[in-house]
């Protein structure tokens, strides 16, 4: 590769070459973040439409969609697309890719070409999975439990498994890139305890990316081998153990749910101090809470298998460990409240999303305690209580944090301000729609309605109709940002370099930033949240 001449040009990364080729072969982390954002949004609305059809079907006890087969393929598609093609990559690859080098004062990630390969792997995996899902799909649920998925499933299990397998390498590449960048490319003076908490949460997420995803890769290879040759690795009739698949699958999938939530925790820890104009309460505790979540996340996967025939000793061990992993999340919530105490809170759109996040994430976390208690899990496992629990954390927590981050850094990424009033309305509508959709499901789960049911007994209908109604409000609330954010690209007024008064290095670059980020590498002297005396207007900082 020829030697790179250091680009001296001061033009922004958006207008630095407009040909399709300059976008599709870019190694600029900012452009790759934009490419990812477009593909993430596509997958989000695709998975969302599958969810809408599921809620449509559950309006009546016998199911609006005639064939149960179609319903099974719908919820499997909803699960696969949302987990692997929206939630796992969501914040790290879009906001993380864009902001990490800026926050570190670096010019790009450690391995720019690897970053582009990561996007292409993600799209290749996505294309492969979409081909399978649209040419018939599969009816195994996103968990692929054997022997159902290996011996009894009709449909394109092999093609979907290969698609997810390829997209797994995209996660490993991104995680590897982030960890090495955070270690090696920090600006002078930027010590570990001066790093913004979002960088710490990206670091913890990347540790899980790199160390959990390979186990998913080998699990999918073994599943593929079993599906093609029926040799009995997971088939008890030939001597295999179906619980082995569940152990291997959940060893990846539980840390994966922490991959999904940790960046959200980082974003909220970034937004609350800025909009409360007050230093983050207990910075070191919040930081070490993120890192300890990344480590303990690997000890707890057995709580998915309390009633699946796992041994008594293992179940009791995993129940204890599952309670330990809940403690760091509790510490974070208390520290956010500590930050709000005696602050100067401004309720811009990102802050409304952050408040929504705290409320819904706390509810999600607390219902996790229900499922970690062994005897309660016997009653609640595989019912709508579990569905409500993980939607409170994934949709109430993660998606709210994604929208919060989107609105918080939108001026920096696009150089345009979003319409404030519309954004606040969308945030409140999303909070309302979400609760109407998913709170009834807690009650349905307690009443014993099992998951993944195409038809259900009539006594559950009222709550299901309520939930479906909420889903329509939620769908409307998701469409609003799509409209006004794209609208702001063309009509939005120019964004100042630092609209919110944030102290991170990313706010010291113009909006949108140059291709090389910093003409002169900044030197860091203070911590990330040492705000000047309160009362000063943010824009004149």
């Amino acid at each position, binding site marked *: 590769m020829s030697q790179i001449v250091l680009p001296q040009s001061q033009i922004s990364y958006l207008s630095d070459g407009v040909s399709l080729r300059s976008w599709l072969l870019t190694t600029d982390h900012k452009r790759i973040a934009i490419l990812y954002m477009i593909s993430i949004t596509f997958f989000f609305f695709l998975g969302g439409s599958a969810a809408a059809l599921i809620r449509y079907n559950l309006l009546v006890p016998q199911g609006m969609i005639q064939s149960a087969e179609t319903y099974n393929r719908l919820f499997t598609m909803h699960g696969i697309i949302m987990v692997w093609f929206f939630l796992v990559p969501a914040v790290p690859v879009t906001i993380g890719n864009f902001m990490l080098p800026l926050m570190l004062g670096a010019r790009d990630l450690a391995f720019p070409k690897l970053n582009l390969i990561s996007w292409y792997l993600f799209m290749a995996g996505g294309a492969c999975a979409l081909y399978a899902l649209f040419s018939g799909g599969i009816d195994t649920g996103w968990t692929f439990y054997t022997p159902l998925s290996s011996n009894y499933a009709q449909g394109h299990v092999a093609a979907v498994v290969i698609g997810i397998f390829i997209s797994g390498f995209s996660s490993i590449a991104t995680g590897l890139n982030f960890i090495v960048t955070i270690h090696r490319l920090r600006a002078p003076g930027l010590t570990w305890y001066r790093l913004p908490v979002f960088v710490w949460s990206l670091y913890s997420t990347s540790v899980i990316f790199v160390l959990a995803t390979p186990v998913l890769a080998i699990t999918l290879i073994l599943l593929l081998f079993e599906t093609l040759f029926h040799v009995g690795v997971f088939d008890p009739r*030939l001597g295999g153990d179906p619980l082995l698949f569940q152990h291997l699958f959940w060893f990846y999938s539980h840390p994966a749910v922490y991959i999904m939530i940790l960046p959200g925790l980082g974003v909220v820890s970034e937004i609350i101090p800025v909009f409360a104009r007050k230093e983050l309460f207990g910075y070191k505790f919040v930081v070490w809470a993120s890192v300890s979540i990344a480590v303990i996340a690997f000890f707890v996967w*057995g709580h998915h298998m309390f009633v699946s025939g796992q041994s008594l000793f293992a179940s009791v*061990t995993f129940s204890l460990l599952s309670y330990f992993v809940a403690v760091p999340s509790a510490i974070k919530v208390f520290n956010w409240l500590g930050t709000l105490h005696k602050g100067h809170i401004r309720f811009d759109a990102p802050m409304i999303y952050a408040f929504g996040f705290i409320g819904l994430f706390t509810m999600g976390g607390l219902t996790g305690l229900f499922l970690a208690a062994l005897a309660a899990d016997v009653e609640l496992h595989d019912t709508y209580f579990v569905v409500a629990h993980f939607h409170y954390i994934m949709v109430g927590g993660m998606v709210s944090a994604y929208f919060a981050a989107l609105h918080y850094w939108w001026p920096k990424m696009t150089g345009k301000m979003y319409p404030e009033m519309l954004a606040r309305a969308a945030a409140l509508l999303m909070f309302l729609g979400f609760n109407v959709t998913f709170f009834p499901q807690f009650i349905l789960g307690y009443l014993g309605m099992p998951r993944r049911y195409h038809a259900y007994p009539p006594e559950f209908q009222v709550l299901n109709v309520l939930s479906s109604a909420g889903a329509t409000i939620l769908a409307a609330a998701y469409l609003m940002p799509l409209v006004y954010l794209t609208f702001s690209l063309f009509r939005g007024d120019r964004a100042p370099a630092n609209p919110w008064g944030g102290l991170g290095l990313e706010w010291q670059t113009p909006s949108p930033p140059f291709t090389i980020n910093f003409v002169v590498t900044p030197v860091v002297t203070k911590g990330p949240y040492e705000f000047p005396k309160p009362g000063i207007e943010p824009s004149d900082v």
Partner: protein
Amino acid sequence: MRKRHRLNLLLLLVLFCIAALEFGVSLPPVPAATRPILALPAAIMAVLVALGYMRLLDAPAIARGFAMAGIFWLAILLGLAMTDPLTRTIYAVTRQIGS
């Protein structure tokens, strides 16, 4: 440079000895319970190659950190997962499908 070559050669001989030992130990019939000791020579050889040929000691500090992380997480996967089959009291009955 000469010292490095001598070290490499010495390591090669040590590895050959351990490999030969491992091969030799496994020939006489050993009761099933003690077979996991075969993991010992393999682990020693792996560590020797990592320290000697991969020069883990003079690699940057975080590289050593990543190596330790890999081993630690592997131990979690193997250790915690094995608590289930080892303590599962009910018999996993196999039904042979005659080939």
